[in-house]
């Protein structure tokens, strides 16, 4: 998937992946896509909740070799 910015949140625990995602989204303009890579298993559900609460659509959420990879579109 195409993306405009990548955030490496590997090795970080709750709530840091979410806080860093929020910060990274601030640097994007509407319609741009952020890729987030995390190793925190809790971030799978948290990222869904973050997306629905903030209205930034979660385009995809997948597991790739022990990493969790998310694509979020800035609203």
């Amino acid at each position, binding site marked *: 998937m195409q993306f405009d910015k990548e955030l490496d949140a590997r090795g970080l625990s709750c*709530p840091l992946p979410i*806080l860093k995602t929020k910060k990274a989204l601030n640097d994007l303009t509407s319609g741009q896509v952020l890729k987030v890579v995390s190793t925190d298993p809790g971030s799978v559900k948290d990222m869904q909740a973050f997306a629905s609460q903030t209205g930034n659509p979660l385009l995809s959420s997948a597991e790739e070799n022990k990493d969790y990879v998310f694509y979020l579109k800035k609203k």
Partner: protein
Amino acid sequence: MATHAEIETELAPGSALDRAISERIDMLFERKLEAKLAEINAARTPSMTIIATKGTLDWAYPPFILASTGAALGWDVSIFFTFYGLELLKKDLRKMKVSPLGNPAMPMKMPMGPKWFKSIQWNIPNAVQSLIPAYEAFATKMMKKTIKNQGVAPIADLRALCIEAGVNLIACQMTVDLFGYKHSQFIPDVKEYVGAASFLPMAREADVSLFI
């Protein structure tokens, strides 16, 4: 053409026309109200108030984790620090400790060494803990190492993230006086020093209010 009197009879309370109009208005009103309420809900920012009352290293986490996450979700967040919670506003957080003494729920595991060693649960009786010099300092050191190993943010970092995200930090003036603290001991980001009467109206308006 209908006369005045005829129209009045048709519209008289309880008449067929009167009932039809009334039903129609009710239906339109309900539909409008629903749309309006949804609009109001979508436009308003959710808010959360937290009361932080504890000042040990372990208990410092919940208020700052919840506040920073709430702010990331776009909520308005305020934390009211009272009693030992004031420790979390001190300029120097390095003195913050965790005590395993009288805390039977705290896992006592070593953060270093091989896997089998790390999995040992060190059950040390309270009476023994209290006699070992610097036991609390040692436990705090081990806890800080575990926190670092697990990629959990240090308290100072989480607090800085809260400040950056616009979380309101409010201190209880009564406790400041009670414990003989000075405002200069606290970070300048403390928005105000107030009492319960100032905090409660904020909590009343909040969607989420937590006591920690």
